[in-house]
């Protein structure tokens, strides 16, 4: 959300400067262009996600915000001030690393208090604050242990507590849930969301898991090959993807040419859950004939892959309790249809 006031002359005034602003940022590694003319704004207090496949540039962006690397062109602003050339230890930004990077020669408590110790806070005060943070992430009893004695999920929470100790303006999270199993990941997603709401800080998350980005973020930037394809809220990203890449990366999508079922010829995307299969196309629906290839049971729904022609396949997600599902067998010719309004035109 952007907060806009009106000044006394009725002009729109931006009351709060953006937490982070990238202006024309470019990053080159030798001959490779990792980031190309990246521009975006992260608002204060927002939970912002940078989503994309490996090598898309999202981690590079995070490193540029943290200060572990510097842009080859363009500038990065924090609350309006140019921080492009500042070293990491001068930025009010803290990071939760993907591999946690906890210090093995210090206890958990000392790890969390590290930032405060560097800031020359006295021992009693910083240990008290560190203990409070550990209690907040429910690891209060582990204060005297070493990181090597903790499980992955516990280490992740220590890394989180350590990054929050200095009350940074912006918290960066580099694929924090990647090493956790599914159940733990889901639990941590909820915890992070709750933490964000309680603390009111700006969170910037990097992930390749679109489910993570959709569930936690207020806004998501989708990266592809060093550029941002779309920045939007999760719902808009899902329902109104602007490009084929976004449609395929965020949720699964079928990208078709509309010439297959109409006289027009442009690229459209249709989500699998909106596609139904049947003996004929009902009225007021758009559809085309397909041949069933495989049925993949996924629990709540069954993914039915169908062949349209030699170059096009589509997938439909049919509810596993649908009574027509048993009649849909491989090699069967059938019709796939959907409502026109569920289609999205792609650029």
């Amino acid at each position: 959300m952007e907060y806009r006031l009106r000044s006394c002359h009725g002009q729109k005034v931006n009351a709060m400067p953006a937490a982070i602003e990238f202006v024309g940022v470019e990053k080159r590694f030798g001959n490779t262009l990792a980031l190309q003319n990246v521009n975006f704004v992260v608002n204060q207090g927002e939970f912002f996600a940078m989503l994309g496949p490996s090598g898309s540039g999202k981690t590079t962006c995070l490193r540029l915000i943290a200060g572990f690397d510097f842009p080859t062109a363009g500038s990065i602003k924090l609350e309006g001030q140019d921080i492009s050339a500042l070293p990491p230890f001068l930025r009010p930004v803290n990071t939760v690393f993907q591999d946690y990077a906890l210090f093995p020669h210090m206890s958990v408590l000392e790890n969390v208090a590290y930032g405060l110790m560097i800031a020359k806070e006295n021992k009693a005060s910083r240990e008290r604050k560190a203990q409070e943070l550990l209690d907040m992430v429910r690891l209060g009893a582990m204060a005297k242990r070493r990181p090597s004695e903790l499980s992955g999920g516990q280490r992740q929470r220590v890394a989180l507590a350590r990054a929050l100790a200095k009350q940074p303006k912006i918290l960066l999270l580099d694929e924090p849930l990647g090493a956790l199993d599914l159940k733990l990941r889901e639990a941590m997603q909820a915890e992070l969301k709750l933490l964000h709401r309680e603390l009111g800080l700006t969170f910037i998350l990097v992930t390749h898991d679109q489910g993570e980005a959709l569930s936690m973020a207020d806004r998501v930037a989708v990266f592809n090959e060093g550029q941002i394809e779309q920045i939007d809220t999760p719902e808009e990203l899902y329902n109104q993807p602007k490009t084929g890449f976004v449609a395929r990366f965020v949720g699964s999508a079928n990208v078709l040419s509309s010439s297959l079922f109409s006289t027009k010829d442009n690229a459209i995307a249709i989500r699998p859950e909106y596609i139904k299969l049947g003996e004929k196309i009902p009225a007021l629906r758009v559809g085309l004939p397909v041949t069933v290839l495989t049925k993949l049971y996924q629990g709540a729904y069954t993914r039915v892959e169908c062949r349209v022609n030699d170059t096009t396949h589509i997938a439909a997600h049919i509810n596993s309790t649908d009574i027509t599902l048993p009649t849909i067998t491989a090699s069967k010719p059938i019709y796939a249809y959907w409502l026109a309004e569920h289609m999205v035109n792609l650029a």
Partner: protein
Amino acid sequence: MNQAQNKRVWALLLLLFPALLWLTILYLGSLFGLLWQSVYRLDDFSGQVIHQVGFHTILQLFTDANFDIVLRTTAMAITVTIAAALLALPLAYTMVFHAGKRQRAILYVAILAPMWFSYLVKVYGWRVLLSREGLIYWVLDKVGLAIPLDTLLHSFPAIGGASLAASFLGMFLVFLYMWLPFMVLPIVAALERVPQNMLNASSDLGATPWQTFRKVTLPLTWPGIIAGGIFTFSLTLGDYIIPQVVGAPGYFIGMMVYTQQGTVGNLPLAAAFSLVPIILIMLYLSMAKRLGAFDAL
């Protein structure tokens, strides 16, 4: 144990047998055989070894003359170790964190190349370098530092001597040169194992590069420094050539062991002197453990 496990144990023993043989008989056995001699003593009149167990010989270590030898050697070993650590740290740090691939390869070769040359050649080479007619003296003379050097050598009995080549300072320089690779390599290995991300994390939390070095890098490097220190410490304690070739008069432990078991035939005393480095190293390691050097392991 069942059949399969039994077979595995036998297979393992068979594989380890040559190594175990070497370790127990050749190494531990001969070491014990030597050290056991220290409880016997030499009869001054007959020159024969009296095979009677007693602490007479070991107590001889504490006479003024003998104890001086122990102190002298230990002091040299400590100074060489500290100096080697101080020299090796910046070198290793540069090699790991600041050198490009090619530069690092060149540095590795530069440090390891001296080890391809004969020990004696290096020692005698240094003696020539350090002597009055040698290169170092010549350079210092040109720069005008010859007289200060002479004054230094003549006023401090602890480090001085007749000339650089016959002084403790000269000996110290040669020891330092010889053992430096042994200090650099373990430290390089330890530094390479410090993950970049940990240094990033420290910087991220507000630490300047120097603070990161003191609070994160150095503690994680201690095991490497101690390992390097074991080499320099024990090698200096046991060396018997360098003190003879480049050095002021005054025996070192190694020389004592050599002469006592050789010319003098006083094997018990030689054995007693051999005990000293072993005990000192054990003290060194326990002190290091007490100071937390192995915490990061």
